[in-house]
């Protein structure tokens, strides 16, 4: 009975949180829309500089821009269209935003997921190797290596990826890996230094059993929280990296949208990015707090 109540409570909490996140995302999207709308250069197009246009054509072009409504009605129309699932049409690319997002999200999603997998594997591997051999040489070199990667600007990593012909997810992985490595290493070191682990080892428990029964359960909540944060980092890094590597994902779309002041596209891309990041960060919080609570 208690378990059911707990589950129902958790479910309601999660639902409330999701709704809150969604509203926050919409708020963020509308905020960026306001910024873009009032920034200089809105409603102006490069095609106006073409001297072949006659005066009437230029006027007609400008009229089309003016017909575009003020901000309040834009908000209203956007939200009501959103309620019906219609995300509007991109001005610069002349295609429905929903279709563009549907094409681009999988690319970005794949890069991010693969990059994360790559980073987590590498970090876990290196951290556990470090545990196995606690010599100072390994310690120093792995610190130096992850320090080096952490010190490279992500733009330089992207350019390296382009030149070495590696896929985008490698660049994302390289950006995320050093942060993961440091944290996982310090977490594992702390966990293995706990007195009960020492006691278990004194009792003669095998290293495998120690890991699964004593270290992992305690390390799991912060690791899960780390997963959420690393997802946010990876997704955040994916945007400039994709723009630089010219990979047909969300990052390049966002960059193009900003350069051409394409309001419908910017609003929707911001919404998607916000939602993903907020969800990732919330997952981190939730995992950290509830699981930590449950193991107490």
């Amino acid at each position, binding site marked *: 009975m208690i378990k059911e109540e707990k589950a129902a409570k958790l479910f309601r909490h999660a639902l409330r949180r999701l709704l*809150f996140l969604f509203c*926050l*995302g919409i*708020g*963020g999207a509308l*905020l*960026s829309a306001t*910024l*873009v709308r009032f*920034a*200089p*250069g809105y409603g102006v197009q490069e095609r106006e500089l073409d001297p072949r246009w006659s005066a009437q054509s230029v006027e007609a072009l400008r009229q089309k821009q003016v017909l575009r409504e003020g901000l309040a009605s834009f908000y209203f129309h956007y939200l009501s269209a959103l309620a019906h699932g219609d995300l509007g049409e991109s001005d610069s690319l002349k295609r429905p935003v929903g279709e563009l997002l549907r094409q681009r999200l999988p690319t970005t999603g794949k890069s991010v997921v693969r990059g994360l997998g790559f980073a987590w594997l590498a970090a876990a591997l290196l951290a556990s190797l470090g545990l196995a051999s606690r010599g100072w040489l390994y310690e120093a070199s792995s*610190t*130096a290596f992850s*320090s*080096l990667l*952490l*010190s*490279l*600007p*992500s*733009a*330089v990593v992207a*350019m390296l990826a*382009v*030149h070495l012909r590696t896929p985008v997810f490698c660049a994302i992985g390289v950006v995320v890996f050093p*942060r*993961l490595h*440091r*944290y996982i290493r*310090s977490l594992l070191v702390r966990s293995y230094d706990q007195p009960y682990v020492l006691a278990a080892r004194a009792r003669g428990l095998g290293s495998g059993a120690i890991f699964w029964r004593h270290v992992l359960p305690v390390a799991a909540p*912060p690791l899960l*929280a*780390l997963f959420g*944060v*690393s997802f*946010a980092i990876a997704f*955040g890094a994916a*945007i*400039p990296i994709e*723009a*630089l590597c010219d990979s047909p994902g969300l990052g390049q779309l*966002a*960059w193009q*949208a*900003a*350069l051409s*002041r394409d309001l419908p596209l*910017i609003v929707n*891309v*911001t919404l998607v*990015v*916000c939602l*993903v*990041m*907020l969800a990732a*960060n*919330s997952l*981190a919080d939730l995992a*950290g707090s509830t699981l930590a609570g449950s193991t107490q």
Partner: protein
Amino acid sequence: MSPLQKAAATILCMTFALMVLATILVPAPYARQFRDVPNAGPSTAHLLGTDALGRDSLSRLLYGTRVSLLLAPAAALLSTLIAALLGSAAGFLGGWFERIVLAVTDLSLSLPWLFLLLTVRAMLPLDVPPMLSVIVAFLMMGLLGWQASVRVICAATRGVKDSDFLLLARSSGCKPSRLLLRHVAPNLRPLFYAQFWISIPLFILTEANLSILGLGVMEPMPSWGNLLRGFEDFPSLAANPCRLVPLILLVIVVMCFQLVLPSQEVTQ
């Protein structure tokens, strides 16, 4: 301090010294074009060669060091101040104020500011002197970089709030503002310092990323990020390895910062 940390601290001090002595050491003004020798390799006249417009690379590197190393701390200071104010207020007052601050922080962290920076730059007036535009660039970074520290500070403030001595102070009738200023803030000061020092290398890297994308320090003023802009052309880099010096210097300085500082937690 371990020997490694001592070495890192020495390197940092040397770099700062270099930055301060830049005007004395520099062989030529950073904007002066030696038009007869564009893209030259290292020589006695130009120790690191010249760039595409014939400007002395060593001078530009020294000036760029000054720009990056003077203004990253400025941005870090601004962002730490904002984070300190918001974080400690949120942690101290708790309740709905804390929820709002955390929500705003989350949102601000999630917004893709990179392409919004484009529009912000276009709003600047045209006739600002170059140094002022650099300051504005770093101010913008400071205003957008405070989110990471807020959660840490908030959590720490909450910890302090629940501590015994604060309970004692509150029960003896201390006003909230006095509590905040006299009891909470001094206990958090080490945390503020730590956050400040941690932010500096982050802002150096952010500036580099922004300048490579064309959104950072504007020409002809050099900065580390600016000097990295020609890196898409790897074969010419291989031909003239002196061009890698800004990147090497940046990486070394950032690594030294990381080694000297307390290890940074990714999650709080």
